[in-house]
């Protein structure tokens, strides 16, 4: 294939459409949101255009700091759990026969077709006292009495990892398929055990992919607002839940917008830090 930089205006044409879409559906709404976040809230009414920092000032409190901290921590834990589970799984999957791979991938894709609502309700039933998995443990004589596993942090985490797992596998899959098998063969020939070969050869070779996947799952998990409500207690509610409350139930758009802008900024900051740290690590 020819690869040369675009020269005439015509070469740029294919770019126009995505650029226009990005402007209309991302840049404009995001700009509107930033503008609204500075508007003046009218309690008992709506909001008036203004330029005030009240909405940000209200957010800067120990309470919202705690909620933001929890949301970030939850998203990070979900990202780590997903990658830790998905990496060995995907690695083994790529070593399987084509037919088996197809079956697994179709099964994972079918999870993506489930909405967050269905996933939430399904897990809340599985974790319930009356119809949940603990009843099986009781039947097997492992547990004395059936008990409810939801609402709890574990339930929220399980639901979110379940939801993000297929994405993780699908992002890791192409990189692992392309991984040169001779690398591991060489390691094995030199006497490394399969486990040791995986950790000393496969994982370092995929460092960039793993970082990218962590970031993707992190951002994906940060937006979750239904599962924490369905499976957690109020202390497990993420910032997204509180943003929804303000926007939909309190019709406090300026405050909701300010929280959303803050969340985006913190997220971008964390991602930038990760990328910079990754580059430094490579240079060293």
């Amino acid at each position, binding site marked *: 294939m020819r690869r040369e930089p675009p020269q005439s205006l015509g070469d740029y044409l294919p770019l126009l459409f995505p650029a226009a879409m990005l402007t209309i559906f991302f840049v404009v709404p995001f700009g509107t949101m930033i503008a609204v976040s500075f508007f003046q809230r009218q*309690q008992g009414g709506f909001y008036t255009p203004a330029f005030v920092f009240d909405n940000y000032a209200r957010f800067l409190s120990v309470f919202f700091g705690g909620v933001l901290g929890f949301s970030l921590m939850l998203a990070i834990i979900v990202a780590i759990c997903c990658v830790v589970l998905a990496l060995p799984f995907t690695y083994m999957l790529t070593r399987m026969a084509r037919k088996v791979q197809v079956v697994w991938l179709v099964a994972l894709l079918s999870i993506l077709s489930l909405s967050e609502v269905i996933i939430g309700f399904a897990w809340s039933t599985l974790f*319930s006292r009356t119809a949940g998995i603990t009843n099986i443990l009781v039947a097997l004589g492992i547990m004395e009495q059936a008990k*409810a596993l939801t*609402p709890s942090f574990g339930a929220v985490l399980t639901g979110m990892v379940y939801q993000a797992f297929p994405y993780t596998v699908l992002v890791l899959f192409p990189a692992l398929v392309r991984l040169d098998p001779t690398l591991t063969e060489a390691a094995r020939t030199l006497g490394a055990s399969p486990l040791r070969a995986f950790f000393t050869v496969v994982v370092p070779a995929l460092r960039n992919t793993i970082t990218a996947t962590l970031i993707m799952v992190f951002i994906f998990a940060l937006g979750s607002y239904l599962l924490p409500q*369905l499976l957690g207690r*109020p*202390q497990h509610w993420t910032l997204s839940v*509180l943003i929804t*409350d303000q926007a939909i139930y309190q019709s*406090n758009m300026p405050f909701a917008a300010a929280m959303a802008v803050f969340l985006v900024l913190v997220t971008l900051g964390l991602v930038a830090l990760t990328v910079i740290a990754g580059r430094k690590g490579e240079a060293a």
Partner: protein
Amino acid sequence: MITTSIKRRTLLGAGLAGASMLAMPSILRAQDKSLKVGVYGGYFKDSFDKNIFPEFTKATGIAVESIAEPTGEAWLVQLEQAARAGQAPADVSMMSQVAMLKGQSTDLWTPLDTAKIKNASNLLDRFVNKYPDGRIAGIGAVSWYITLVTNTDVYKEAPTSWTAFWDPANADKLGLLALVSNSFLLEVTAKTFFGGTNALDTEEGLLKAFDKLAEVKPNVRLWYRDEAQFEQSLKSGEIPMGQYYHDVTGLAAADGHPVRSTFPKEGGIQDSGCWALSRASQKSEEAHIFIDYMCQPSIQATLSRKVGTSPTVKREVTDLTDKEFAAVSSDIEPIVPRYDLYQTKSDWLNQKWTELIVG
């Protein structure tokens, strides 16, 4: 019933409103007089279209174009913005009490003339919404109850008081609504422990109610926004006690589920919607005829039987049997939410509430 209506109300909204506006004009041309009526989209609108509006047209010759309105305050925003431009997307709308108050602040509602609404004399006083200077802003359209509900397998005896929420024996067993403005638990606390909702007049009183309410927290397993989630758990006994809609619980019990709805001795929570006329509307005459028609005892009784709402008129004037009345209401004096607080102190209340349940 209310369950589905609220959920659908939220989901449908403007899209349906637009679609119905496009679809209806051809039918309207056949009639001389017409009126655009905004009703919560989904269950409410379907029921009104089926049971109420055709009869009204037959009786008065006024064609009704029903508009599906979204819940929350989105419809209020649309009405207000349209009124500024001299437009009325609906002449008469069904509005929540908080929305009524917010509309009052901009004089959105045309004052109603009770001389033209003879049946208004049937109304219970609390269903006449007035401007501070006494002009009438809205007339009660429908009302419904939130009561103390229990699973009958877990609780053999029905609880008699809201104090059951505070009973340490009910640890981790309650399902309560998650928002200060839809659970009305501050009012429940005030009525149960501090002699009435007047106790919430001062910030001091509100803080006392918050402190008392904090004692309920260990008993709460679920703070729900989504009605379906609690209803399912109540039926299965997973979460055997809580607050829920009286009519929906009655229907579930009638279907054989082990649930019951109890009016505590302090009263059930009665929430309601008003008919209000946009100031941009040119159809004042028709609107008064419509509101008068809706205040008839027989129409309120029909609403109770077909839609499951509680009558806004005095019980004596309706022909509801004891059983029919009990299915939608109670003679115990209700707890009427302090809607004014959700207008004047909404942000403060919301912040305190969120800190209470999340912190």
